[in-house]
């Protein structure tokens, strides 16, 4: 039996899915968090096994876009529909409910966010609503878990409503709104409530001028918090752990291997002045563990902590509104800021999130911009670690150059566009205080995801790099690309090896750059070229999957051209 969770965007379907299944799909406070289906089997009362499907949110079943077409298709296969409703927006949510009723499938209605109705002065008569519609109606507060037990018990009572007896094609919107009007009149009472503090903050953060200050404040404090937590974790936890506990062990191992030789090279790497240098030694045990765990992981933790707070608070759609007119100059609308911000964590979810943009052209542009000019957290962590040593202004300059590239490519691609940019049309969710339990669970899964995906690739990558070094294959590649790398960009020709290794992972690549003696200028240019060229293999795969091979090739060509151009220009002017 298939049980579908359906409802408008941002009503809490994914949180309910997680509650019912014990799984952890990502939820956040903006429309369109769920971009694909999650399925799982759960046991209901009486140990009955059912398949539970979290369907991406939709406002209507008369498909106006791809996502809605998919939702209708899934709906036809479903056996029971759980219609999740945002109780604070009953009227609008019932529009979808009426359409669902016309499909004549067993239905359960869940009034979620029940706790918020009280603060907002909304009173809903559940019994009466149940009577009118003829299907079970229950109230939940998914964030706290209230009502979830009841929901799992009531699924078996799902019934077909006879409130609307026409098929969807035969009913017009006016009829639906009239019916909804009657329901609302009979079941809902509104009481006037004074402006709450959240409402005041909300008004301020969408104000054209106040909002700009607010955005600077939020983004600046986010950045500071990310650095503060990241540097704190490195300085007080991870680095001391490596220096005080692991270094002595590795040094003993080094002596055991006779301070040199093939195995020493692979496991410990090169000793710098007789010591292990975790960034430059480049052994599997030394840099292989230090880079992902001590240099990158702390920033993964701090970045995703801050991002999760932003996601769950409801600020992101407001930021989208604020940047909309600027983004229009690039042929994008403001919602493109959300995939872009996610891209700063990892390009992969960033590019996947471009699905919230409705047209293909925008998706191509945003995906290309992310893969070229948005460095992932692993790369940023390495930039902070490596360039940060010379002064923070160099780190800022990298961001500055990437921003200029981002705007430049956006403007150029916009010249070639056909047709209009669709207008922004989104719901602004109310601000919510993030639930810390959900926040930390989300953080835990994201961090775990990083460790399980990154660590094996880093370790394997360093092993392969060391093997290839001993086979002299790199020398051949370096000589081949020397005209571009050495002459145009003024980099040591071996830097190309690091840049190519960026295809594997950007953090190892950044570590590899350091194994070449370089001036600060060369390090700066190669960092930028590394950020811009080849997305890592995971990003490449997702570009391919989302855009198709033609557009991926197109995107890679743009990437190579701009990287060469920017690298050469920087070499000329610095």
């Amino acid at each position, binding site marked *: 039996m298939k049980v579908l969770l359906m409802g408008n965007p941002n009503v809490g379907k994914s949180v309910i899915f997680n509650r019912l299944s014990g799984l952890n799909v990502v939820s956040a406070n903006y429309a369109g968090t769920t971009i694909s289906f999650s399925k799982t089997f759960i046991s209901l009362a009486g140990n009955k096994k059912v398949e539970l499907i979290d369907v991406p949110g939709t406002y209507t079943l008369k498909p106006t876009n791809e996502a809605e077409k998919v939702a209708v298709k899934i709906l036809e296969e479903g056996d029971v529909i759980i219609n999740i409703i945002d109780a604070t927006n009953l009227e609008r949510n019932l529009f979808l409910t009426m359409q669902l009723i016309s499909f004549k499938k067993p239905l359960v209605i869940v009034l979620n966010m029940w706790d918020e109705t009280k603060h907002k002065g909304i009173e809903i008569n559940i019994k009466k609503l149940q009577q009118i519609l003829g299907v079970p109606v229950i109230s939940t507060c998914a964030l706290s878990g209230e009502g979830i037990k009841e929901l799992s018990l009531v699924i078996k009572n799902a019934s077909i409503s006879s409130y609307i007896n026409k098929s969807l094609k035969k009913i017009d919107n006016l009829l639906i709104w009239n019916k909804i009007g009657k329901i609302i009149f009979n079941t809902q009472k509104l009481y006037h409530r004074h402006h709450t503090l959240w409402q005041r903050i909300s008004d301020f953060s*969408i104000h054209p001028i106040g909002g700009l200050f607010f955005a600077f404040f939020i983004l600046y404090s986010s950045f500071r918090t990310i650095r503060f937590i990241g540097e704190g974790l490195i300085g007080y936890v991870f680095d001391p752990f490596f220096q005080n506990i692991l270094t002595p062990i590795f040094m003993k191992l080094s002596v055991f291997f006779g301070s040199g030789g093939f195995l020493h090279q692979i496991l410990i790497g090169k000793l710098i002045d007789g010591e292990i240098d975790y960034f430059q030694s480049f052994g599997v045990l030394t840099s292989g563990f230090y880079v992902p765990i001590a240099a990158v992981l702390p920033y993964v933790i701090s970045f995703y902590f801050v991002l999760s707070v932003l996601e769950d608070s409801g600020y992101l759609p407001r930021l*989208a509104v604020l940047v909309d007119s600027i983004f229009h100059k690039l042929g994008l609308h403001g919602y493109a800021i959300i995939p872009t911000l996610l891209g700063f964590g990892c390009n992969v979810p960033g590019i996947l999130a471009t699905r919230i943009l409705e047209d293909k052209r925008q998706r191509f542009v945003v995906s290309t911009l992310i893969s070229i000019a948005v460095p992932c957290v692993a790369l940023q962590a390495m930039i902070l670690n490596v360039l940060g040593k010379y002064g923070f202004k160099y780190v800022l300059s990298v961001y500055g150059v990437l921003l200029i590239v981002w705007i430049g490519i956006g403007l150029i691609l916009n010249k070639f566009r056909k047709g209009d940019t669709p207008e922004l049309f989104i719901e*602004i969710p109310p601000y919510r205080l993030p639930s810390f339990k959900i926040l930390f669970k989300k953080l835990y899964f994201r961090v775990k995801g990083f460790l399980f995906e990154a660590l094996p690739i880093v370790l394997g990558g360093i092993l392969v790099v060391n093997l290839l070094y001993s086979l002299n294959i790199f020398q051949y590649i370096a000589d081949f690309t020397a005209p571009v790398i050495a002459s145009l960009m003024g980099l040591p020709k071996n830097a190309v090896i690091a840049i190519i290794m960026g295809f594997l992972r950007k953090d190892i690549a950044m570590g590899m750059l350091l194994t070449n003696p370089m001036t600060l200028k060369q390090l700066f240019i190669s960092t930028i070229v590394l950020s811009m060229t080849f997305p890592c293999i995971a990003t490449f795969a997702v570009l391919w999957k989302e855009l198709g091979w033609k557009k991926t090739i197109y995107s890679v060509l743009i990437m190579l051209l701009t990287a060469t151009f920017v690298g050469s220009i920087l070499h000329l002017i610095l």
Partner: protein
Amino acid sequence: MLKKITELRSKECANIINIEGSQNFKEKLNTLGIRENIKIKKMSESFLKGPVIIKINLMEIAIGWRMANRILVQTDL
């Protein structure tokens, strides 16, 4: 007085009288509950022809400027 949503002042309330555009356009607005004969409140002035934010019941919606320009409203006066 008949106005476009874009011409409303911040915090001004009005009734939607007419939506100019194709059936598709109306359908799109309708999904978020924007339709003729309902009451809205403009929440914020738009900046550089950025989106207009309106409130319907307790829900705030951001609408691109050009879209908002095609929605005619009648103010309470």
